[in-house]
């Protein structure tokens, strides 16, 4: 059933963040253990919708990397309710925060990212897609048990970059998990991915095409890359790596590759 709010939820309630402006929505943050044996626990920050949270969908946001924090990027400079000021001393409101439309859950995944941790240090050197997706499934199951008011709520997954892997992989895990239930309590309705890593071969071909069509590299280098690089492989040859490094280091110039027309961060 819908269950009642257990004390775990209230223990995680954030009364206010240092330097935060007054807000009307509730927010929670804390840990969910996803593997007792290894002592892996994932950290989340949950910002409820600004109005009628009980009627709004639940949306999980994942950043990529792999190894990057959804709190550093998604929450603090993209879709979260607050922006951090230059000195890191206070917060100000994000006019286009996505919690105006939904209840947004930010997850630092996998263990080793941000505040998420493991008590087994070898976990930090053998993370991969499979365990990340499995731990994220366990996280969602246990998080919804801690927040039972979100059982059966329309649920979407969102993310960017290497989360182009995390998002569909978690969606598949949840889809498979739900097959055992006539009325799944994780009511996954869909997902949305931005600038997502999708297919290693086609992504690479498309990336080099972008570099050439946006005049970031010379014709000569473009032709060299296409002739020296076999993108069907997972590990490229030395000559391929050399020509790509030449392109980036000698022809791109001092730019922000993540936003090629804005100034770089000095």
């Amino acid at each position, binding site marked *: 059933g819908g269950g009642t709010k257990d004390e775990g939820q209230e223990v995680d309630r954030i009364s206010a963040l240092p330097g935060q402006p007054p807000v009307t929505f509730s927010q929670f943050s804390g840990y969910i253990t996803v593997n007792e044996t290894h002592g892996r626990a994932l950290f989340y920050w949950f910002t409820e919708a600004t109005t009628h949270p009980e009627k709004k969908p639940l949306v999980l946001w994942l950043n990529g990397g792999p190894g990057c924090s959804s709190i550093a990027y998604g929450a603090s400079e993209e879709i979260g309710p607050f922006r951090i000021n230059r000195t890191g001393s206070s917060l100000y409101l994000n006019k286009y925060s996505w919690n105006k439309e939904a209840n947004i859950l930010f997850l630092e995944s996998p263990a080793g990212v941000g505040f998420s941790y493991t008590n087994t240090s070898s976990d930090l050197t053998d993370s991969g897609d499979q365990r990340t997706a499995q731990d994220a499934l366990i996280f969602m199951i246990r998080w919804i048990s801690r927040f039972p008011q979100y059982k059966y709520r329309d649920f979407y997954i969102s993310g960017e970059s290497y989360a182009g892997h995390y998002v569909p992989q978690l969606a598949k895990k949840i889809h498979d998990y739900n097959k055992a239930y006539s009325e799944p309590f994780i009511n996954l309705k869909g997902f949305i*991915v931005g600038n997502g890593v999708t297919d290693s071969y086609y992504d690479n071909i498309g990336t080099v095409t972008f570099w050439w069509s946006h005049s970031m590299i010379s014709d000569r280098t473009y032709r060299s890359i296409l002739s020296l690089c076999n993108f069907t492989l997972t590990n490229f040859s030395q000559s391929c790596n050399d020509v790509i490094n030449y392109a980036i280091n000698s022809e791109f110039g001092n730019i922000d590759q993540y936003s090629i027309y804005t100034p770089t961060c000095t």
Partner: protein
Amino acid sequence: CTENYAEKYYNRPEVQRAMHANTTGIPYKWTACSDVLIKNWTDSQFSMLPTYRELMAAGLRIWVFSGDTDSVVPVTATRFSLNHLNLTVKTQWYPWYSGGQVGGWTEVYEGLTFATVRGAGHEVPLFQPKRGFTLFSSFLAGKELPKS
């Protein structure tokens, strides 16, 4: 440089207390990206396209968007990959609008919606917050992006 602000803010003890974070005394500073994880990443699925096909068949609502000034996972990379799903077009390619300006272009397929976001880098909501919000609102509503 905004991620530098996060490095300052989330390493403040009073912020970690307020967030119930770092309760076990993690033996390293909080940081935006873990070098250890990315250098030692093991299994990585070569292509997500089979997973997309399976989840589209399951009837999930799937949207893919692309900031068009990103050169790390650029719009042409995503288009080239999606192209190989061989999708059936439902609504032909058109410019979508936000705030009276072209927000990007979009095409709606059976099972998937693709959209570009004009003038946005890798982190779309950072560079084009209003267009990112329009995109998100349309996704949640299950509506096609605005034609004007």
